[in-house]
């Protein structure tokens, strides 16, 4: 099993002590293997624990029970910046640094030699077509441009694994589609392993090799759907009947979970009547 990049075994995550009033079971016995070079989406209703699972893989949270191994090394609540890079929403670019300084600081944190900073940063910026904005501050860019820069910042550190936590959630649908295509292009060239959290069905089908559909809280993996379509994917893929079939399949799986999530948020009396 040498081609496994990430191995999640029986991971349970509980916030707050067991038996306490505010205790929440976020993840319940989740196991998942992700192969090298694979693009896996975690798809599920809001609050199902998909971001929690990503944070466990990235070493930002320590699971209550269970283990997570990345390239054979146990991740136990410790980030492994040499192996794993995160891409969050576009708003995690540091607003007090320029675009290029944001890259420099990421490379510095990752422990990469100063002499390489400029070359790496500019190469990543060129890859997303943002090289001429290197000296701008994030607030001077549009939301779509910021997210392009943010993706490039995650890619420039050169890790094999990229974890993306709803990176396009703040974007409008059209920008989202364009960036999705860009991402597919970029990744086809780099052969990275990606775990991508989203609640957009179309995004999941368009980008993934496999989609892990999760249940409402406590999160479990309900089903895994394969998307057999080579990368880079063209927008034409979205027009194929196979795309709508997969999308509908995901929706059918999710519908009950979304209902369960909404019901849990209602007043008990109203739900009962």
């Amino acid at each position, binding site marked *: 099993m040498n081609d496994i990049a990430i191995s999640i075994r029986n991971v349970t995550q509980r916030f707050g002590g067991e038996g306490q009033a505010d205790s929440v079971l976020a993840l319940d016995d989740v196991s998942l293997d992700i192969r090298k070079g694979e693009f896996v989406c975690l798809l599920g209703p809001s609050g199902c624990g998909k971001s929690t699972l990503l944070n466990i893989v990235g070493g*930002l949270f320590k699971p209550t029970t269970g283990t997570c191994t990345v390239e054979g090394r146990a991740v136990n609540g410790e*980030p492994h910046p040499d192996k794993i890079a*995160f891409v969050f929403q576009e708003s995690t670019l*540091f607003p007090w640094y320029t675009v290029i300084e944001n890259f420099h600081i*990421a490379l510095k*944190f*990752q422990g990469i030699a100063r002499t390489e900073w400029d070359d790496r940063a500019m190469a990543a910026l060129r890859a997303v077509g943002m090289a001429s904005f290197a000296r701008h501050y994030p607030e001077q860019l549009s939301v779509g441009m910021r997210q392009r820069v943010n993706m490039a910042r995650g890619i420039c550190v050169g890790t094999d694994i990229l974890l993306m936590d709803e990176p396009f959630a703040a974007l409008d649908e059209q920008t989202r589609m364009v960036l999705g295509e860009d991402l597919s292009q970029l990744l086809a060239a780099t052969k990275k392993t990606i775990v991508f959290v989203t609640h957009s069905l179309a995004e999941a089908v368009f980008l993934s090799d496999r989609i892990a559909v999760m249940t409402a809280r406590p999160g479990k993996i309900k089903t895994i759907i394969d998307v057999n379509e080579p990368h880079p994917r063209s927008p034409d893929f979205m027009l194929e009947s196979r795309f709508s079939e997969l999308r509908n399949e995901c929706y059918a799986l999710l519908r009950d979970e979304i209902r369960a999530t909404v019901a849990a948020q209602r007043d008990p009396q109203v739900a009962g009547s």
Partner: protein
Amino acid sequence: MEGSSFAARSVQLSFVAIVAGAWYLASETGSVSRLFLPPPREVIAAIERLVATQAFWSAVTVTLTTITKAFVIALVAGVLTGYVLTRSKLAMRVIEPVLSGLFTIPITLFLPMFILFFGIGAGSKVAYGATYAFFPIALNTIAAFSKAEERYLRAARSMGAGAWDCFRHVLLPGAMPVLITGMRIGFFICFASVLGGETISSVAGVGRNIALAAELMEPARMYAWIMFVILTSVTLNMVVYSVENRIRSR
């Protein structure tokens, strides 16, 4: 932008001109007694005489030294206290309301106490200015560091940043704008309370000389000192604002 700033400047300058004109008319026509308000030319002549004296420069040195000491104490104590408090949720809940409550008390009430403790010399004014300036600096430091956003810290940690990296590159730059506002407010409160304290009770300094000139019925000399303080605070204000803008626009 250029036009509106020009308009703003014109209004500000006309305000100064109206005040100066009213002063000139009121004193030169004799409608206000010279004992209360001497005409501008007498005050200007008094300023010229004043700056030529050794006593003037030694008074200015005393006051500036007092302000500097008071501000440095307030800055170090305020920033440290504020920062340490934000590291603990419990301390924030218990101590932050106490600090903002204390700040509403007129600290001037404690000036006699400071004189009792530290004597009538510069020491009591240092304590008074430092105490007054401590509160806005501590409270703004708390505001600056407690609004630090979790998402930036998480991003930094995921990149492998250690505790010092997080402080130096995430917490501190994020807190800087509010931190600087606190320092500016603290500085001007310090400036005002040292001068006020000197005027009320002291043996030396600019404030002491203002009070002395009034007691000796030398209005021109008193206004000369007051003009000097006004010019100094206007200049300081401009300097501090430009420093603040330079740091902000970084």
